[in-house]
């Protein structure tokens, strides 16, 4: 009896051992697989940054704009790639955020300078100096990475292990080698020059002042404004939070219909700006039933609503339909010029024909009295800039934002190629092709890319 128990136990133990070993083996396989991925990321990152440095150096001696443009576009793709690799390594964001920013900005700055070169403008002394500074920082960065790589090779340390806490062998070496090395870089990156140029990651974008004007209002006033925003029924408003430390500070407000007192689960929320008491956005999360009205009717309702709320000169520019809601983009129009930066979005529920969404942050931030100059080049001249095989429509004048947040007056052409439709923007002063967007008409609506 006892013997049998022993046999059974030993079989069970053996079985468990085999299972355990199999688990261990699988575990090691996954570890190795992950480690291989990390190593590849790390070495790719290192090589990318080395090449960024080399290309930045080449710019110092290159003489023609064409060569510059080639080099800049190479820097841009290398930076983008390096950033992708860095963001896939298992390091906390806080330890690499400056390095990430550096890579984004160098890539973006290269793009802006290459555009400048293509327009026939050479690099200025300041820009050359900035490039030299950036070269110095990329040099620091690659030096750190090289030394990290050497340390890891010497101590036989794996990247995957660096993130596991409490590893005994690592405690002896340097537990946070990866992090420490990157923190060293981060510290040095604090001082790299502020880059201001025409690009989305430029330093000036964050510091742009908003054009919203008006007196500061109290929470009570904000609640009153919020309660009267929608007119389909009576609402009571309640402040549920304050919005601060951003571009347009405001009050966060929830709306409930006056009739159902007991309901405290609010479906409508909105933000009212402290300055001027404007509605920044509104969202109604109610269930939408079967559509009863057409898209045209929906657009009409939205237009009327905007007029009533003090936005009379708004032109619907495109729409999209989803879950029974119709989203319409409106752009401000003045003297026949469409100003795309002054944007308001309205959502209409196609079942009841009510307003279920409103978003005016773009309008509130950008809108101001502008001095609209006459275009320097004629419609015909602009048309000659368009590809010979694309069939352009009659253009209209529009102000569009550049990537760096500047505004450019353009001729907007709707252009057909094969079955595809595009919007081509020709700078109305310089005649440069500023931007090309593709218009995609799909089941849900119109998409502009």
């Amino acid at each position, binding site marked *: 009896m006892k013997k049998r128990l022993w046999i059974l136990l030993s079989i069970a133990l053996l079985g468990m051992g085999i299972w355990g070993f199999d688990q261990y083996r699988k575990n090691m396989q996954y570890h190795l697989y992950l480690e291989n991925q990390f190593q590849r990321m790390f070495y790719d990152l290192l090589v990318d940054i080395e090449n960024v440095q080399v290309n930045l150096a080449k710019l110092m001696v290159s003489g023609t704009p064409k060569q510059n443009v080639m080099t800049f576009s190479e820097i841009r793709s290398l930076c*983008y790639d390096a*950033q*992708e690799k860095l*963001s*896939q*390594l*298992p*390091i*906390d*964001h*806080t330890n690499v*955020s*400056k390095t*990430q*920013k550096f890579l*984004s*900005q160098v890539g*973006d700055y290269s793009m802006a300078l290459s555009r400048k070169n293509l327009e026939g403008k050479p690099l200025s002394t300041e820009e050359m100096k900035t490039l030299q500074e950036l070269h110095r920082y990329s040099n620091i960065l690659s030096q750190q990475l090289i030394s990290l790589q050497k340390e890891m090779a010497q101590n036989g340390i794996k990247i995957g292990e660096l993130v596991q806490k409490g590893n005994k062998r690592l405690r002896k070496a340097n537990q946070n080698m990866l992090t420490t090395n990157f923190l060293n870089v981060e510290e040095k990156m604090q001082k790299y020059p502020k880059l201001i140029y025409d690009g*989305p*990651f430029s330093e000036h974008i964050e510091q742009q002042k908003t054009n919203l004007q008006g007196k500061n209002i109290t929470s009570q006033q904000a609640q009153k404004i919020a309660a009267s925003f929608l007119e389909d029924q009576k609402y009571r408003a309640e402040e549920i*939070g*304050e*919005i*601060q*430390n*951003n*571009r*347009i500070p*405001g009050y*966060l407000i929830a709306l409930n219909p006056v009739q159902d007192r007991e309901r405290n689960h*609010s*479906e409508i*929320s909105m*933000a009212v700006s402290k300055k001027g008491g404007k509605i920044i*956005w509104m*969202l109604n*999360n109610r269930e939408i039933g079967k559509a009863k009205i057409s898209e045209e009717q929906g657009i009409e309702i939205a237009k009327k609503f905007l007029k009533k709320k003090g936005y009379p000169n708004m032109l619907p520019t495109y729409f*999209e339909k*989803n*879950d029974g809601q119709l*989203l319409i983009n409106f752009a401000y129009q003045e003297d026949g010029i469409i100003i795309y930066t002054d944007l308001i*979005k309205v959502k209409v529920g196609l079942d009841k024909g009510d307003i279920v*969404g409103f*978003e005016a*942050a*773009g309008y509130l931030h950008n809108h101001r009295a502008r001095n609209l100059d006459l275009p320097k080049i004629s419609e015909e001249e602009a048309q*000659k*800039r368009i590809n*010979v*095989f694309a069939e352009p429509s009659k253009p209209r004048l529009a102000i569009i934002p550049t990537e760096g947040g500047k505004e450019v007056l353009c001729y907007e052409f709707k252009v057909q*190629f*094969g*079955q*595809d439709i595009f919007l081509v923007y020709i700078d109305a002063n310089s005649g440069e092709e500023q931007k090309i967007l*593709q218009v*995609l*008409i*799909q089941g849900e609506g119109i*998409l502009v*890319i």
Partner: protein
Amino acid sequence: MKKTKFIVSITLITVMLMSIIFIDSIDAQNLYWGSRGSEVSEVQRKLKQWGYYTGGIDGVYGAKTYQAIIRFQRKNGLKVDGIVGNQTKRAMGLPTTTTQKAGVFDRIVQIAQQKLKQWGYYDGAVDGIYGSRTYDAVTSFQRKNGLRVDGIIGSETRRALGISENIVSAAYSSTNRGVSRSGDVQLLAMAVHGEARGEPYVGQVAVAAVILNRVKHPSFPNTIAGVIYQPRAFTAVDDGQIYLTPNDSAYRAARDALNGWDPTGGAIYYWNPATATSKWIWTRKPILRIGKHVFAK
């Protein structure tokens, strides 16, 4: 013996060259595999005379003709494509495309002028009149592009300018079928559901907005997937909750955020004060609080 062979070949060449001068009725068009007609016969005869071609002169461009042309092009340092275009014809000594005469209005000239102007070779008027400035522009274009510098807007030059007749090829399919935003919506909805289910709707839109604000921020990856899957960025990604099936509310929140609703007004961080362990996070400037989350810059 050798001498006679030499003389024979010389006479052959002379006869041939002379015959070419009289053949001027050939319609100048590119010949491809499958082309038929007198022009093909002409090419075959030529190639046979020169020993490249061994088949019959039947006026049909087939396998044998193709091989012969390939060999001819390779020997003569031409582009080896099996197409009898102007270059090949010229090398064979056959007449090429009929060309424009100066001073004649032409749609082709007009298109070429526009193209040359766009590319900075021409600064005159786009009027379809082939004048001396157009000539200068065409020749300098040809020189830059390694074409024969003759000032003629022939098929080679047209091709180099990208103004061949049918620029919209049959292979160009509508982009509509190849693009949709459903991938973005799906991924964003998954992240919202994993991170903020049970939060008020505005809080869900806010989480989606933070992800999109990160895409636009220099310190973060530049794609939605890059931001969401950044190691240690979102707990729902690290513990696999992102792979739960999103509900309708998550999809709607994702769509609202993609359409530009940002309740946070530019936040790039959020945390739950009850569970957040990082001290660093409290150094950020809070913008607002919705439900359980604090949103900050």
